[in-house]
């Protein structure tokens, strides 16, 4: 099995490595979003495991406790926690990221009161601020210290600076290698597809980072031999995408997704931790000031980030993909659309999308994507002809 196939296997069988770790006597700390310092979990000697949803897994148990308009990916994660799909977790760290994720902390507590026999991992709320102000940074620093204390309590051992620095080095290497993967997508022509990229990036959050780094190094060594991808270059903005349905649909036509702005994609590998600082201070600063997650104020940074990322990826078109009820992102959409179109990048928007795409929905999306891609292709062709005519004159 080559490096990519191994990463693909871990993307598909997400609990594989964590369960093996557990079988060997290790402990697993689950977390949501990319706002929890994985480095600290690793330094505590635990397996850091990012929680994701399952579009095919149903939400029957979660539906008993939440309204139908709860964001569907988070509803799925909630359901998986309630039905034992994450029974290998010893601890669970819930950040104050988007509202739907924070709500999980309270929902799990309430369900535990209603159903005391339900087995849940021990919970910790990591209360991250939503502004970049210095004062909020101090609050973040205190919360990072609090998390360290909690991890030490769970593990029964102190997390030394040395252990932290080592974990930071592993995490930074992972980010650096993933940036090289991102560069392969931004290359002309791209060398890997969006579907492949999501699996490479995502598997990093389901495996031990050192193992993942080995695979990435191996994969990158062989990257020169990767076949060129063709088709219109598209960028995806919008909701976190923790599965392949939409990317497979887009890339089944004449298009390649060369980048995205979400925490299961390229944004995950931004901003290494500054190794010149005290490790805990550096972690606090990195997770406070990193590339803007949609929860962060002000939204202008999000608009600028989206535009810059699309331009750097040499995107010819932008797809906005919003899961149903994931509303916060949609406030940025008119500004992002305007900024992109001013740069000559056309956009198409799919709002209120289901987490599990039905066959009719897939067909509807496929038709609209094909039309969008075709229109970009025609524009490109006519621009080339105009350029040729101009050169001939």
């Amino acid at each position: 099995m080559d490096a990519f196939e191994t990463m693909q296997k871990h993307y598909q069988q997400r609990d594989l490595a964590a369960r093996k770790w557990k079988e060997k006597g290790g402990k697993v700390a689950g977390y949501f979003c990319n706002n929890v310092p994985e480095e600290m979990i690793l330094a505590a000697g635990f397996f850091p495991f990012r929680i994701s949803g399952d579009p095919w897994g149903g939400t029957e148990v979660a539906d008993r406790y939440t309204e139908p308009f709860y964001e569907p990916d988070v509803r799925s994660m909630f359901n998986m926690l309630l039905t034992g799909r994450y029974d290998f977790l010893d601890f669970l760290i819930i950040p104050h990221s988007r509202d739907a994720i924070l709500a999980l902390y309270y929902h799990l507590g309430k369900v535990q009161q209603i159903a005391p026999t339900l087995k849940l991992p021990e919970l910790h709320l990591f209360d991250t601020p939503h502004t970049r102000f210095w004062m909020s940074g101090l609050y973040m620093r205190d919360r990072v210290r609090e998390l360290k204390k909690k991890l030490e309590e769970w593990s029964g051992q102190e997390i030394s600076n040395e252990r932290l620095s080592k974990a930071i080095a592993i995490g930074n290497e992972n980010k650096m290698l993933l940036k090289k993967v991102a560069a392969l997508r931004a290359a002309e022509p791209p060398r890997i597809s969006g579907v492949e990229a999501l699996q490479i990036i995502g598997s990093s959050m389901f495996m031990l980072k050192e193992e993942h780094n080995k695979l990435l190094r191996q994969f990158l060594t062989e990257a020169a031999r990767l076949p060129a991808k063709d088709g219109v270059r598209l960028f995806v903005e919008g909701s976190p995408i923790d599965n392949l349905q939409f990317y497979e649909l887009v890339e089944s036509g004449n298009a390649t997704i060369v980048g995205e702005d979400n925490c299961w994609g390229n944004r995950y590998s931004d901003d290494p931790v500054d190794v010149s600082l005290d490790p805990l201070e550096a972690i606090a600063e990195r997770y406070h000031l990193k590339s803007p997650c949609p929860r962060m104020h002000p939204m202008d940074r999000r608009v600028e980030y989206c535009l810059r990322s699309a331009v750097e990826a040499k995107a010819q078109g932008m797809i906005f993909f919003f899961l149903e009820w994931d509303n916060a992102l949609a406030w940025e959409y008119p500004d992002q659309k305007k900024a992109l179109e001013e740069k000559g990048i056309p956009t198409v928007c799919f709002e209120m999308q289901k987490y599990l795409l039905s066959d009719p929905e897939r067909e509807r999306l496929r038709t609209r994507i094909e039309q969008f891609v075709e229109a970009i292709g025609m524009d490109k062709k006519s621009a080339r002809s105009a350029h040729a005519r101009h050169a001939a004159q």
Partner: protein
Amino acid sequence: MSEVRSVSGQPKAGSGQGDRSVKQLRSSVEAAAYQKEWFKKTRERISEGDPFALAQADTPHEIFLTMDIPVVPVQWWSAVIAAKRLSAYYFDLMNERGYQRNLCRYCCLPLACTMDHNPERAPWGGLPKPTVLLAELTCDSHSKIFHLWAREYGCHFFPLECSASTVSYSRWWERIKHHWDEVIEPHRLDLRVEELKALIRFLEVTTERTFSHAKFVEIMELENEQEEYFKKTRDLIAETVPCPVNLADQFASTMNPQWHRGTQWGRDQARMFYEEVKERVNKGEAVCKNEKLRLMWIGAGLWHNIAFYQYFEEKYGAVFVCSIYLSIAADGYARDCLNDPLRALASRHLSMGEHLRQPDWLVKEAKLHKVNGAVMIVAENCIRDVGRRFTQIAFEDAGIPLLTIYADVVDAREWDDDKIKSQVSSFIEERLLS
């Protein structure tokens, strides 16, 4: 009532729903008149160069009051726009500007109104440009709405962090007045105090006014007196059968003084409300002499259709006797300053949103008011409502039937009056009268 038209000029379906509500209390009529007059005078002051703030309802208005800076609460303004039946027009406008239809409404209606830049259409001539916008980032959308709003006005937005509670303090209402420093975690209070200090300095710099500590303490004390009247009023309404005051009056006589909390007018108005209710109780006056059922309304007021509540009084003798507004005024605001009034103020709003939604507190209020059933309005565009099923479960466990209706409190476009009345009627007939 004039016909409301959509942006494209077409008459709006669903914008002429229901009749106007009937207010029975002098205090609520006077409060509404005062509010309108206050708004007019405030406009005059602003036109002469006075500063002015627009702030979320659950933010420390007391800071502005101390500095004699008029403040308009966003939710109140949203309710005014909805009550004037302009929400459909403004939301259509927003949608035409590229903002999706499924976004939150209650907190963004004033933004939509501002985007119109047409004072002639806006209620009471619209809001002038504020000096500052203030909001706690209590949901993902707040930071975006206020950012866009500040841009629309060309003014500053001062965001307050919304730190998250790590513990759910049960029976908070018994401890919050005197022991708020136990109910709210110290690290959250520390951050909010620092933010309030920063806000004060920001206002001192931008308005060249000084924050008077003595005046601030006086405001905090006046506010405690005001909330004490609300507590007495709530208790009186809760114990009196049949109910002496309808929900429309309760809204007006609570919310208007609350938006001027800490002023002498606010305190006096709360006292007037209490005395008027007491007088009605003594005289045996009731909303509905033939009261058969007592209902609780959970969620924000149905601002675009306040008359909705009266329909069930007439049809079934079913009276809505309580809502979160008077109840939270009674239980959630008063603070013993414990020699640190700024920290006490910080504690007032930090967990209010969470306390308002805590199922145990809602059940306590339902029992206190001896309700037979509850109707809970849930907005599909409000992330903070996603956990409302826990309220449903708590009510059912307490033996109090609860009906959930899905609708928006300010957006009249999707309100189907017949359908919702039919849902509530079926609930009454099948679960409360059978």
